[in-house]
């Protein structure tokens, strides 16, 4: 638990992730090779973050 968080605090990380995801969605449309790799990493990020957050607090 933390003290009351402001809207900026609440939405800073989600906004950053949304921007990265959007870059990932567009990148593979623009080109092949590296452009595809950017897209895999950027869109893979939400999946990795999900797993990281859930595993971190897993009950033993």
């Amino acid at each position, binding site marked *: *638990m*933390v*003290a*009351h*968080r402001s*809207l900026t605090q*609440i*939405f*800073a*990380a*989600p906004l950053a*992730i*949304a*921007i990265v*995801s*959007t870059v990932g*969605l567009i990148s*593979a*449309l*623009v*080109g*092949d090779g590296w*452009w*595809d790799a950017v*897209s*895999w990493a950027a*869109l*893979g990020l*939400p*999946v990795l*973050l*999900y797993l*990281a*957050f*859930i595993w*971190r*607090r*897993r*009950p033993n």
Partner: protein
Amino acid sequence: MTATTKSLRRWGAVHKWTSLICTLFMLLLCITGLPLIFHDEIDDLLHNQVKPAEAPSGTPPANLDHLLANALAQAPGKVPHFLIWDRDEPGAIWVSVGPSIDANPVDNLLIRMDTHTGAYLDSPDVTGRFTYIMLKLHTDMFAGLPGKLFLGLMGILFCVAIISGIVVYAPSMRKLRFGAYRAQRTRVVRWLDVHNLAGILLVAWTLVVGFTGVINTWADLVLKMWQFGQLAEMTAQYKDRGVPSKLTSLNGAVEVARHAVPGMTPSFVAFPGTLFSSKSHYAVFLHGDTPLTSRLLKPALIDAETGALTDSRDMPWYVSTLYVSQPLHFGDYGGMPLKIVWALLDILTIFILVTGVYLWMRRRKAGVSQERAIANAASIDNPVLTS
């Protein structure tokens, strides 16, 4: 009640109702969509196809008139509607034939031909395939255009649910760090955290895939609009003519189109009298060669009597929007790794849907209104709710 609480309750109600109405259909779409991401791989695994003859690079393609004649010899009495270059297999060309030129192309027979020898390969009946059944369930639930438009409406509700979900995410997270997962708490708290975490992480992807899906449900209408708009304009001087009794060379028409639109590759040809062309023209649709421009088609209309070019224009914005929205929905534009990421994101979306329904049921059982639970973050610590 403060104005903020009131407004949050209203957003909570929007989130609840839009989600509840579309959830069942979104589950269907997510589940059927999952195998569709890998439809090529699944088809390869489940169905044997005749392989085209080995052709060293630089082998010239067969004459298309010769190829077409070979295809029609396999389907006596049928007429050609479309000739389609296989996107993924350069060695194969599909010829789509129907009983008459104005028959519904949905029921057409598809004949697969060898690009380089012009020989017949096979004509698989795709309608019994697993991937076809998934595709039908996913696009129109076997209910034709009304089914499609209905799923489009569900897609719009899904998008509204996502946007209202962003709003109600704020009160839920007032006392929690980003990514909080309270593993030691009861299931309703843990699943709320999963719902919030997966929901907010996937916002951009679910909105884009959801909305491009909605756009895809309008494909038939977009085609009609193009037919009555740009296509009618381009062929205005031919509008009173019927289908010519003898068509000029198909191979010649494609050559003329290639020269008219340099740097682009033919994607498919629509024969005179089909939905994609006028009664007097071969419409040769060409595409570019980057991931984006390979989706954007440009038609070249070739007079089917003289073989001369009538007109070639870029598609209007509403058709381009449809074509660009397709890869963004299918996830087929960045190789196998992107498909795998797409599938993982799809599975996480299923988590969001299931946890969402669960939270609604628990709160209903506990007698706490969803709106109140959302508006008042503290309510999640209410023993009635979390016991």
